[in-house]
């Protein structure tokens, strides 16, 4: 990192880092993305013509996976804490835990989708199936991207074996993405699973 770049980073017009600003604007965009999917789901809620409806949900499984994702947010924030306070070991451990929790969540989702399919609910069964799978599947894809993202952060931090000047920023931005995926699930869990159908 040359002195010149350091200088320009210090004097951005808003006093914030470009990359972090990009991530926040991107997350604002993602709000519209998930909003569109969620409203599609809500419009078709209760419009099911045939086949299984929301009574197919298994609350035990979903509650556990929700808890898992919530805890992954906690471990993520501790990884950021580690990076910001120069605690390399804490950072790496917490990143690893976050990745594992993310994978666990994905495992639960695959299991859930498989169970639903075996009970006769697929993409083409009815409106509920189509909108449910697309909505939660898209969220699952985001979790998957997040797992890959955090894994690459972990690998690069293992490779350099130390906290570089920019590491706290990179972990912080990765964390923003991960927490966003978590808050999307906070909304989805309530709106899709907890609020009953009429």
């Amino acid at each position: 990192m040359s002195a010149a770049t350091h200088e320009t980073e210090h004097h951005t017009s808003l006093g914030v880092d470009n990359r972090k600003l990009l991530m926040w604007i991107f997350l604002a965009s993602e709000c519209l993305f998930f909003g569109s999917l969620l409203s599609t789901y809500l419009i078709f809620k209760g419009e099911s013509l045939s086949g299984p409806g929301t009574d197919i949900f298994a609350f035990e499984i979903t509650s556990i996976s929700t808890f898992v994702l919530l805890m992954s947010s906690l471990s993520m924030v501790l990884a950021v804490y580690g990076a910001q306070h120069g605690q390399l070991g804490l950072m790496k451990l917490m990143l690893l835990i976050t990745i594992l929790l993310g994978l666990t969540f994905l495992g639960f989702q695959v299991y859930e989708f498989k169970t639903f399919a075996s009970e006769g609910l697929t993409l083409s069964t009815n409106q509920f199936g189509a909108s449910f799978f697309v909505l939660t599947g898209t969220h699952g894809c985001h979790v998957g991207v997040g797992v890959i993202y955090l894994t690459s952060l972990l690998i690069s931090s293992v490779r350099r074996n130390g906290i570089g000047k920019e590491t706290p920023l990179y972990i912080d931005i990765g964390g923003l993405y991960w927490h966003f995926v978590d808050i999307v699930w906070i909304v989805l869990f309530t709106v899709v699973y907890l609020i009953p159908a009429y």
Partner: protein
Amino acid sequence: MAEMDAVHDAHNEHPTTTIREYLLIGLVLSVITAIELVMSLYTTALGAILIPGLLIFSAIKFIIVVAMFMHLKFDSIRFTQIFAFGFVLAASLLTAVVVLFGIDASDAIGGGFIGDPIEHHD
């Protein structure tokens, strides 16, 4: 570490939250989720307050994560403004679409100027 601190501007300090506080926040989030789950088991008993209650709890969790875990409470106000703009826009537009689907316009022809005002909400 001195060099690292120099990179950050005065209002871009690391949040002062300690590990203990983060763990406490995690606990609060878990408890709220547990309450939500219990609520969803008593749908008939809770009646009309069920849905608003669940939404409020969900909003509280949302705000806690955004403010504390995503550090919006400590970070530049610009981030909050940008994210809030996107979120509010998404919420209002997509609520509007859902509401538009709920309106029974079957009696309205060619733009809805013929026929009764909407009293046939469904």
